[in-house]
């Protein structure tokens, strides 16, 4: 094994790590934003829309994410053309981000929905009876109580997302994994182990950093939970990475 070679190629990866992080952060943030209306529609059981969202969630959960990436990459331009935008190539990164936003919107909505439903009806009614607007009630009473319940699920979504983002190389994005496949080709397969081991270490690093961020939030959550009197179960406290 050529450790010197690994140290040599590592700096080249530094230039593509931001792409991986960009894809992950955009997908996480906009996925969470998307998941809120999806969860709301399902909670309120708005006819038709609710069934549509159910189908969307079921579809994203039951098909391989690699397949979804291809669908978006090849399908999105066709769809855009149908509604009048003439773009034959939307760019691999855009397709990847849009796909992962949709994937996470579905996944996270299924984290938010049970968290919302876990809040006692009496909490809503107490706020309503005092004349809180729906927004004031959500902001001051409901979301603060949902947050500690939803956090483990959102943390898991984040770790999954980091891993899933490594598949975007398949549609031609030069992220960490994409660069690795290029390099492995350039060396005619001679240094494959070194290249992919370097990549593995990088993903490990990124996951560790995110895990630390989640743990920080986790500590806050435990404080909140202790205050509110919920008992925290052990399996809820850890993350499957």
């Amino acid at each position: 094994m050529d450790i010197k070679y690994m140290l040599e190629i590592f700096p080249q990866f530094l230039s593509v790590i931001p792409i991986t992080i960009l894809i992950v952060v955009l997908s996480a943030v906009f996925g969470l934003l998307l998941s809120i209306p999806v969860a709301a529609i399902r909670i309120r059981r708005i006819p038709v829309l609710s069934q549509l969202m159910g189908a969307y969630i079921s579809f994203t959960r039951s098909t391989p994410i690699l397949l979804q990436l291809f669908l978006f990459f090849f399908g999105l331009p066709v769809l855009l053309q149908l509604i009048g935008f003439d773009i034959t190539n939307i760019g691999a990164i855009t397709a990847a981000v849009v796909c992962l936003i949709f994937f996470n919107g579905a996944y996270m909505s299924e984290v938010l929905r049970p968290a919302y439903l876990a809040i006692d009806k009496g909490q809503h009614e107490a706020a309503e009876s005092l004349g809180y607007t729906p927004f004031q009630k959500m902001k001051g009473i409901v979301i603060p109580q949902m947050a500690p319940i939803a956090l483990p699920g959102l943390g898991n979504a984040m770790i999954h997302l980091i891993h899933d983002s490594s598949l975007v190389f398949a549609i031609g994005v030069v992220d960490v994994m994409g660069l690795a496949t290029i390099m492995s080709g350039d060396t005619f397969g001679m240094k494959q182990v070194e290249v992919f081991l370097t990549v593995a270490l990088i993903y490990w690093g990124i996951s560790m950093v995110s895990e630390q961020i989640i743990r920080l939030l986790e500590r806050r959550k435990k404080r909140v939970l202790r205050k509110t009197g919920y008992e925290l179960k052990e399996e809820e406290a850890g993350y499957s990475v």
Partner: protein
Amino acid sequence: MLNIENLNLSFGDHKVLDDISLEVKKGEVITFIGPSGTGKTSLLRCINLLEKPESGRITLGGLTYDFGSITKKETLNLRRKTAMVFQQYNLFKNKTVLENVMDAQIVVQKKSKKAAHDKSMKELARVGLDGKADAYPHQLSGGQQQRVSIARALAVEPEVILFDEPTSALDPELVGEVLKAIGEVADSGMTIILVTHEMSFAKDISDRVIFMDQGRVAEEGPPEQIFNHSESARTQQFLRKFYTTTH
């Protein structure tokens, strides 16, 4: 001061409140008694619109609201003039005792933090819990939680406080402290509508007692009349049954 006219409420085909009319004077204490499932809770919930009646009108604080056509803004307005004390207390779990009492003053009434804080400490002192200001609800006994919820209701200075069986979720030894707090609220001149199964308390505290049966007002009058000289066979039957099963 509070006037309800021809209130009707149904859940599907089930008519729960049937043409209820009620006039309450300022400072009056009105107690509703009656068999289970008769609509007492539903009536209180209609008054602050946790349930929306299909028809009827309510006048409170000089404004009349038509239940049939009430807007979102009117709903908030009416709710801000009433306060509810729930059977299960329903204190905000994520807030301290003090924050529970302060929150609506800041969020809804837009009071300054200082004004809300001072008002809240005053109301907590009234129910004897200023020493627990920084505790969280789950650290308190049921009786203490219910007293905090009374302070929370008082702090928004409503026109009327609605109490729905405020002691029926409590262990018997905790009932007294909550009744005492309610008694003090009544003495201070607050207008109160109370639903309770504590008959001797109702007799002491009420200016008027209303016996409800199957969604209607079956009999009403001063406590002395309802409890001792009821003219309605139905009331007498209810009270007789009540005393023989619980005493």
